[in-house]
């Protein structure tokens, strides 16, 4: 028997019950009309009896929910203006917050798309002077050479994080492409090698060496289409001939948006005299990041001292090593956290607005709800209905938030070219969605922000969270926003 048939039968059964009661009353001398009314009174609410009987049958929870859902949708349709306002507020607040969170996720939490990302580290130089604090800089050519020549438990690589737009000529066609310059060991250290051909040789990475280029898969497709063999093909970059030696796997990213890579040819003169090189390393199997940090500390002692400044300040150079994700995102950390603070405010204001609107709407229904309670609806039913009303609005707002967040992410591209590469990698996906934030933050932050705490033997029996807190506190308690952010973070994530 299906639901409709069972409902019909139940209604017929209850009607028969009341008729039998009326028959009895008529036999006792009441008029037919009086008997009918008295029987009805004695029975109570048939709707309530039907409702309670329906509960017995298994389909009921689903059935009740779908009925209430239909009712909620009907009510949402009836007050179009209210629904649109609430949905729009939710869409805006959640949309922009999601977009920013997608960025934050890529910058701080999402593991880098390379094998064993925990073993990758970013190397910079710090100069410390007792009276002047610490200055952090990327490497010069000479510093890179010290790192390269004294690598023990790590494999170092050097690259330039800046990309340059260049003209690329192939036959009679020209393409505008983004070029990045990387050292010979760059791909090997990242752990991703070309799918076709090879990466740069040492000879190609020195001045006046053979001119070689590695293409991204998307550029290979753009230039050569489906042609199978591209290794050895010639192309012109800034008018100079280059030979294609490799093609990277599809989806490979070196942190920024790049179409092709050429050898960096790091040297100690020219650009190598300034702080122009980014250093990174991969910890060799069996070693730990803390061991590498110790090794670099020793190495720092052999670094040549800078000549004292005019005021006599003597800067003490030291290699600083930090997880690659953290190091690479250091530049965008401040603007991103500021943006996060701003959108958190937007979210809060949105939530307060929606709360106020819903409260006003529901208090307008007080008379209706009282009537329904009087007619026999249970408190649970009324409560779930009010809840479902809000959930329908949230669902509509949430659905609208998806295009809003995509548009917001597009908008962010115009905001800051430093963030450009980051925005390219960010996507509105399951990771960025609000329902997953707390878990993401709890898991991601311990992974992304505490590798040092985790690999350090000194961490001993301390919990990951304790390490995380120590690391976080040390690095962010210097500034007020760090304190505010991490305070709020711990409050939200428990």
């Amino acid at each position, binding site marked *: 028997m299906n639901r409709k048939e069972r409902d019909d*039968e139940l209604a017929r059964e*209850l009607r*028969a019950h009341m008729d*039998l009661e009326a028959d009895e009353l008529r036999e006792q001398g009441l008029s037919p009309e009086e008997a009918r009314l008295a029987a009805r009174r004695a029975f109570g*609410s048939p709707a309530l009896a039907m409702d*309670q009987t329906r509960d017995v*049958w298994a389909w009921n929870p689903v059935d009740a929910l779908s009925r209430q859902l239909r009712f909620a949708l009907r009510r949402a349709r009836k007050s179009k203006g209210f629904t649109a306002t609430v949905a729009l507020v939710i869409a805006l607040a959640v949309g922009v917050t999601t977009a920013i969170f997608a960025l934050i996720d890529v910058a701080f939490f999402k593991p880098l798309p390379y094998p064993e990302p925990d073993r990758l580290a970013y190397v910079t130089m710090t100069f410390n002077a007792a009276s002047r604090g610490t200055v952090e800089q990327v490497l010069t050519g000479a510093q890179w050479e010290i790192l390269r020549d004294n690598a023990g438990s790590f494999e170092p690589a050097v690259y330039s994080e800046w990309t340059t737009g260049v003209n690329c000529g192939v036959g009679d066609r020209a393409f505008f492409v983004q070029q990045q310059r990387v050292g010979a060991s760059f791909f090997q250290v990242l752990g991703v090698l070309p799918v076709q051909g090879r990466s740069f040789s040492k000879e190609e990475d020195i001045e006046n060496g053979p001119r070689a280029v590695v293409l991204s898969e998307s550029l290979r497709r753009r230039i050569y289409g489906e042609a199978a063999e591209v290794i050895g093909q010639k192309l012109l970059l800034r008018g100079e001939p280059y030979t294609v030696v490799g093609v990277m796997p599809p989806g490979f990213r070196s942190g920024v948006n790049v179409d092709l890579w050429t050898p960096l040819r790091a040297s100690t003169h020219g650009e190598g005299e300034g702080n122009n090189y980014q250093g990174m390393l991969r910890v060799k199997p069996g070693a730990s990041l803390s061991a590498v940090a110790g090794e670099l500390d020793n190495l720092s002692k052999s670094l040549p001292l800078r000549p004292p400044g005019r005021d006599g300040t003597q800067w003490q150079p030291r290699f600083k090593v930090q997880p690659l994700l953290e190091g690479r995102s250091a530049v965008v950390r401040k603007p991103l956290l500021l943006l996060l603070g701003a959108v958190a405010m937007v979210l809060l204001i949105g939530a307060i607005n929606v709360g106020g609107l819903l409260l006003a709407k529901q208090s307008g229904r007080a008379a209706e709800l009282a009537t329904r309670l009087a007619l026999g609806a249970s408190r649970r039913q009324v409560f779930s209905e009010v809840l479902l009303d809000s959930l329908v609005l949230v669902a509509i707002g949430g659905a609208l938030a998806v295009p809003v967040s995509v548009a917001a992410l597009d908008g962010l591209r115009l905001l800051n070219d430093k963030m450009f590469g980051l925005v390219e990698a960010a996507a509105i996906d399951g990771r960025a969605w609000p329902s997953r934030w707390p878990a993401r933050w709890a898991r991601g932050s311990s992974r992304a922000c505490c590798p040092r705490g985790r690999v350090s033997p000194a961490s001993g029996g301390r919990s990951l969270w304790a390490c995380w807190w120590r690391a976080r506190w040390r690095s962010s308690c210097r500034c007020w926003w760090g304190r505010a952010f991490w305070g709020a973070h711990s409050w939200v994530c428990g």
Partner: protein
Amino acid sequence: MEKSETERVELLYGTLDMLVLQTLLFGPCHGHAIAKHIQRTSDEAFLVEHGSLYPALHRLERQGWVTTNWDKAPGKNREVKYYLLTPAGKKQLTAQQNKWAQLVAAIGKVMRPA
């Protein structure tokens, strides 16, 4: 004889099913007659609410302790739904009666120590 509200006793939770099965032991019955029978035999102490009776009847039907069929009410020109005790229902009734007897005996011992 109508009892006042204060003289009425509330049914103990879970006992309505047993009372319905006991009523059906005397033969097939419809909802109206079952309610009347329980009220009459309890000297109007129990007022069977329809919001409880019909869920109970349908619960028993779902569990296979009763079956149903529509038939003419005797002496009346209207069809009513009759509930019939099944063999499983009889077994269930015996089990519930035993449990009930144990419960009454145990409570009796506590309330009126020998």
